């Protein structure tokens, strides 16, 4: 901070009226309250996940574990179902994201070319799908007829292009200096060349946004697992496993059999309550780590397509 700025600040502070002071205090209090309400549940969950499971049942765990332990994490990472689910989650996130980003960018490029004859047609057929959808049962029957039920493909194929992504990327390409693409053409580069060597590298900011949104969406999805693959244990994902743990109290299907685990002797120390907290942390940590780094990109990306979320 320069000297000039400090003086300016001092001047402003002196100039502030009592009303301003009250506002300032109320404002900061409200915002800090928001931060606390946002963070507390996550910190509390983290504390419970690091606390001895039977001890947690006594209650009174707030921000810090009372009896530190990594048993909960050990249990979670030794559970074969969960390891497999984590693998499927990562796989669908990586494949789904790469494919979506690539395909959306490619179509976006074509509909950003003013000379393209099918430009209006392609744009309209994609945009129209924002206004309607076939609905649950017709989509389900389609997946069945395509033979996608009970396969990994059901996580990927229906989602390779999102219309929102398409609009965001197209708008971004349209705002690029067209001289770059023209000079590439003059140098004899074909459409594919221009797309791969010129457009894709220039689109990094918007592609990062789309990748983040798609990645988070893929990572957080559980409903398609439940709908299409609930009988295929090996295709389950972390979110779906967590959802089943959460539904445990309602006594539905349960994959992690705590009673059986306890009977084997090794895991008496684990309770559904602790497992639930641990899995919530495991599932959220990757997302929480990634999004702050992409903040400056997605804030811009949101604005380009800001009208429809």
């Amino acid at each position, binding site marked *: 901070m320069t000297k000039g700025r400090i003086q300016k600040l001092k001047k402003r502070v002196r100039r502030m009226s009592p009303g301003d002071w009250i506002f300032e205090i109320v404002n900061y209090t409200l915002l800090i309250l928001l931060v606390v309400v946002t963070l507390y549940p996550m910190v509390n969950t983290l504390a419970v996940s690091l606390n001895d499971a039977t001890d947690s049942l006594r209650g009174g765990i707030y921000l810090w574990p009372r009896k530190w332990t990594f048993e909960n994490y050990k249990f979670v990472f030794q559970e074969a179902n969960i390891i497999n689910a984590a693998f499927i989650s990562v796989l669908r996130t990586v494949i789904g994201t790469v494919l979506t980003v690539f395909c959306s960018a490619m179509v976006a490029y074509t509909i950003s070319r003013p000379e393209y004859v099918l430009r209006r047609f392609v744009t309209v057929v994609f945009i129209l799908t924002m206004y309607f959808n076939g609905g649950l049962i017709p989509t389900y029957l389609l997946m069945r007829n395509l033979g996608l039920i009970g396969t990994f493909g059901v996580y990927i*194929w229906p989602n390779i292009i999102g219309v929102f992504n398409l609009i965001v990327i197209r708008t971004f390409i349209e705002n690029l200096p067209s001289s770059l693409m023209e000079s590439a053409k003059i140098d004899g580069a074909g459409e594919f060349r221009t797309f791969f060597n010129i457009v894709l590298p220039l689109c990094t900011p918007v592609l990062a946004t789309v990748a983040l949104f798609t990645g988070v969406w893929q990572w957080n999805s559980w409903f398609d697992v439940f709908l299409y693959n609930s009988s295929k244990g090996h295709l389950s994902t972390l979110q779906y496993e967590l959802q089943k743990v959460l539904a445990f109290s309602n006594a539905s299907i349960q994959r992690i059999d705590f009673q059986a685990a306890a009977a084997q002797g090794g895991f008496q120390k684990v309770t559904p309550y602790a497992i639930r907290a641990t899995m919530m942390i495991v*599932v*959220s940590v990757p997302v929480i780590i990634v999004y702050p780094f992409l903040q400056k990109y997605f804030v811009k990306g949101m604005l380009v397509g800001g009208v429809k979320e």
Partner: protein
Amino acid sequence: MDNNLTLTKVPVAVKQKPKGIKRFFKLLVQQRALVLMSVPFVIWLFIFKYLPIWGWTIAFQDYKPGRSFWEQQWVGFEHFKFLFGNDRFLLVLRNTIVMSLINLVLGFTTAITLALLLNEVRNLTFKRVVQTISYMPHFLSWVVAAGIIQTTLALDGIVNDLLMRLGLIKEEILFMGKGEWFWGIYGASIVWKDVGWNTIVYLAAIAVIDPGLYEAAEIDGAGRFRKMWHVTLPGIRNVIIVLLIMNIGYLLESGFEPQYLLGNGMNIDYSENLDIFVLNYGIKQYNYSLSVAASIFKTVVSFVLIFAANNIAKRLGEVRLY
């Protein structure tokens, strides 16, 4: 002679450009690279997004799985008639619209308020930290969010704990068991999850307000609140109006995950919305026809609403959707 004539004619013809289908196909061949890059995805789109519309025929049949299309019995609008005479459906419709309105009103007021508050923060580091943290819940899955909400509102959760300590209640409240409280819990949940995220658009709109307006207001003796009321809010009025209209278009889309994940036997009369109704009839009870009828109703109403909303928004000239 003849040769000469055709030679001179051809370039002229090219200059005038052949019209209609011929020109279209010529361009198509010329732009085959672009065609190759987009048409496969159009085919994909037709299969995955347009083909399911065919399934809407199920709503007009007495659909029996296993029979072919031609063997199904057609019943016309019977299922729709049944729906609108069905108390459960009307209840579900009520829940959908109420929760949608809660989402709309609460979502807008909290996000605009937060944006205004953030805008008044002079300490940029503090502002940035608050913003980053406020975006976090948006990135968490609804499964995790539902887990958090259930833990927070449990009998031994922090809310009961605080209320007991403050002496506001005599014994713990089973929040998730009180059906009539579900809408409130739903409202609080969506605000918790998305209030920070929804400020992005407003903060951007605030950022482009002409600073001269603030200076002028200051010279006129306007304090903080006057500036907020007379400069900032009018400055983002258009964005607010457009977003409001767009959101009204999604009146029947009150979301699925929060209601499904937070719903239970005790609050089902308040938590069940159209999407859950469709799921229950379709997947759990195998009544495909009724389920499809309900989702057609939803899609058609949504289509009309979104289309109208988009057109109004476009006429206001503030957005460019496509």
